[in-house]
């Protein structure tokens, strides 16, 4: 009866030793390799800092202009351009310009990293079922594990700062681009691929001439999702020393500043909506040939 009532667990001492073992071996690893790993990420840090400084040093009218031009290039919609510029005017007017630029910097850099790592992994997964079997559970873990859990080893390894923040953002934001690249390539019609094969296409011609172009709408949906997830990590990243809109949000949580929290929160929302609309419109335009209404 006693056996059934209480789960046969490890004894408390054993468990403590077990955990201690993991902790101590990881801190050993940290003290041995921490510096090397840190210096490995140095170029990334420099780039991030440089980009943030660049955004902050650029005169605000120029930034507004760039925002407008980018929105236009992506969406070809006057409404979205006006909305984007107005949102940034409001952000500046309410004194959140500097934090917004920092957030913009980290989200842009994180997105670039995710794209440059994620798309090749997605291609690899589409090509080999072994790669798919390896990466799928990894992506599941990355998407579901609470962010705070992987913050612990990252901070132990790299300390507090921009780079661990960036890594945390990337861990969270990487899965969608990988998954959707894989999916997009796997969804390319068999007929199109068979035709390519029948004409003697080699792997490179097949990948870049047929698979990626046809998967582009899905890949773009992945990029869109990656940006959204990167933005949603801004607050958590600010806990480990990343500057930006997350910092005031965090401050207002601990001090119960309703207005401050709301304003900065809404600024994040505004950024998210702008990025989302612009990339979605761009993705839609990539698919126009499917509906047969493109005359250029």
């Amino acid at each position: 009866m006693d056996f059934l009532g209480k789960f046969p667990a490890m004894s408390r001492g054993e468990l403590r030793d077990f955990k201690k073992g993991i902790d101590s071996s990881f801190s050993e690893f940290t003290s041995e390799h921490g510096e090397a790993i840190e210096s490995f990420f140095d170029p990334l840090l420099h780039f991030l800092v440089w980009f943030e400084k660049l955004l902050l040093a650029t005169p605000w009218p120029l930034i507004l202009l760039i925002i407008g031009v980018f929105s236009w290039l992506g969406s070809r919609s006057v409404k979205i351009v006006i909305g984007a510029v107005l949102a940034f005017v409001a952000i500046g007017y309410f004194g959140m310009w500097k934090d917004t630029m920092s957030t913009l910097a980290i989200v842009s850099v994180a997105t670039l990293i995710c794209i440059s790592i994620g798309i090749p992994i997605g291609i690899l997964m589409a090509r080999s079922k072994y790669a798919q079997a390896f990466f799928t559970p990894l992506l599941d873990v990355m998407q579901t594990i609470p962010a705070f859990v992987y913050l612990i080893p990252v901070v132990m390894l790299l300390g507090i700062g921009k780079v661990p923040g960036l890594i945390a953002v990337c861990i969270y934001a990487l899965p969608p681009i990988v998954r959707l690249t894989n999916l997009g390539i796997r969804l390319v019609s068999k007929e199109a691929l068979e035709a390519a094969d029948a004409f003697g296409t080699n792997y490179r011609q097949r990948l870049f001439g047929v698979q990626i172009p046809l998967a582009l709408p899905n890949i773009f949906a992945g990029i869109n999702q990656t940006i959204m997830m990167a933005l949603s990590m801004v607050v958590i990243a600010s806990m480990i020393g990343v500057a930006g809109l997350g910092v005031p949000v965090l401050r207002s949580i601990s001090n119960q500043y309703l207005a401050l929290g709301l304003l900065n929160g809404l600024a994040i929302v505004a950024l998210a909506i702008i990025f989302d609309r612009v990339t979605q419109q761009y993705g839609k335009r990539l698919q126009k040939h499917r509906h047969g209404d493109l005359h250029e």
Partner: protein
Amino acid sequence: MSKNEIAISIKGLYKVFGNRSKKMVTHLKNGVSKADLLDKYHHVVGLKDINIDIPAHQISVIMGLSGSGKSTLIRHINRLIEPTAGSIDIYGENVLSMSKGTLREFRRHKVAMVFQKFGLHVHKTVAENVAYGLVIQGMSLKKAKQKSSKWLIRVGLEGFENHYPSQLSGGMQQRVGLARALATDADILLMDEAFSALDPLIRTDMQDILLNLQQELHKTIVFITHDLDEALRIGDSIAILRDGEIIQQGSPQDIILKPDDEYIVDFIQDVNRGRVIQIKSVMDKGVSIEGPNFHQNMVLEDILPEIVKSTQQMVNVTNDQNQVIGSVDLKTVASAIAKPVIQSNNNANYTQSSSTELT
């Protein structure tokens, strides 16, 4: 361009689907039936002991209903599907021993393919699609477009260069497919139910385009279809495939007049015989009369009114050199037009042999 040159020679070709397919071929060769192979060994037979010589510069039709293995067979010719056993030689070159690189070059220059569902690249314009084969050969897109534009014009797509496939009707999309295949200048053209997805009228149109092109180009065309009328219309020779086996090969006239098997009799039931059978196939050789002369390729339907008009109800048949080689009378024509059941009585042993084979 000798008439008897063999372009593609397929010998003892087997395709079995499953993990132990090689072993299954041995079973098949030892006389295990396809049904047993499925029941006992869980392997599906796609093709069984295919032997066929496809002549150069002609249209060879492979016909069969769905599931007969015809699409599988045509994909063996350019090795989109690997056979389980057998050999495929194209102009004496063994396709199966080619390395990956050689096979790619072979596909780029020697065989082109047209697909039932077109297989166009929807993200490319019509001109880019037509130029595709040349780009894959290594040409720049600009030059490939230039060089392939004559084919685009030839199939009647002038003015649609910058359209996307989705903006075109099915018939026009298949013209793109045809132009793309022609642009590579490959001698062998594989057409996998190329016109089956099209409306009957458009299909006839496309057949005309193909026949027209063929008069000029003399390509070696392997044409897959499930449509007997289409086979009879365009085929210089026809092979009939059933459950992965070829059950008859011959000219369209042979198939109609001397069906080997009850299955084929069923198949040709609904054919308009008057429109297919040529007088050379039914004439009395060497017999001639005083009367009008007609060319040997004339079909029964067209000769009938002429015979009725003629005084002796009989006309002479001439060859290409305008020499009289025989004659036909009303009775011959009438009995040839009648249903194949009557024809089959002339061929007493086929009903017997086929009834044992049909299970």
